[in-house]
């Protein structure tokens, strides 16, 4: 597994944890159950632990003459960026249409939901980027023997 794959895998895990964390916020917000109230904090702590572990994952040294990045990685990254860009626009469109479709033209939402929507859209975009990279590398499973 090279640096790009490791990075994509780390971003995938961290993003997934953050998305779960974001999903638990409404439960904590409207719930009277004390356990549910600490759920977002638990996931935030988990995200921090995963981030710490991913740093250790990255530290692993490569030999001095081993190439870490080449033209294929650039091609893969370029395609993944394109996929995440498309996903970003699709999600922005969805984020614009869904609230008005649910609440109606005269409906209103709290201002606090705006950063959550924007943050969520960017998280999903990063998720698409990581998945696109991992798919193109074949989930790291096509590592043949020399």
């Amino acid at each position: 597994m090279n640096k790009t794959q490791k990075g994509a895998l780390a971003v995938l895990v961290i993003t997934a944890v953050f998305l779960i964390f974001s999903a638990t916020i409404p439960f904590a917000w409207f719930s009277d159950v004390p356990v549910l109230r600490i759920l977002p904090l638990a996931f935030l702590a988990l995200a921090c632990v995963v981030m710490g572990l991913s740093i250790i994952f990255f530290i692993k040294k490569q030999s001095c003459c081993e190439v870490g990045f080449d033209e294929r990685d650039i091609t893969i990254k370029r395609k993944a960026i394109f996929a995440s860009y498309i996903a970003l626009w699709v999600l922005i469109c969805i984020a614009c249409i869904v609230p008005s479709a649910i609440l109606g033209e005269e409906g209103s939402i709290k201002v606090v939901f705006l950063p959550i929507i924007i943050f969520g859209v960017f998280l999903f975009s990063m998720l698409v980027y990581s998945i696109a990279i991992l798919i193109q590398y074949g989930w790291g499973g096509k590592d043949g023997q020399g």
Partner: protein
Amino acid sequence: MGKAEISNCIRRLRFEKGQMTQQELADKAGVTRQTIIAIEAGGYSPSLTLAFKISKVFGVSVGEVFQYGG
């Protein structure tokens, strides 16, 4: 990534060059081992620069390493 139209005989040339490993070839060509694996499997078509680098490692012409539509 789909299968490339360019076929190659890198695997044969590696074994003819004293059982050269994919890692050795990758280091000499300045790419990762995964890229060599992908090229050998026909999953990735290298750039012209990389094709020349690989053929230079084997000391043969590009046409002897890569064949179009083969």
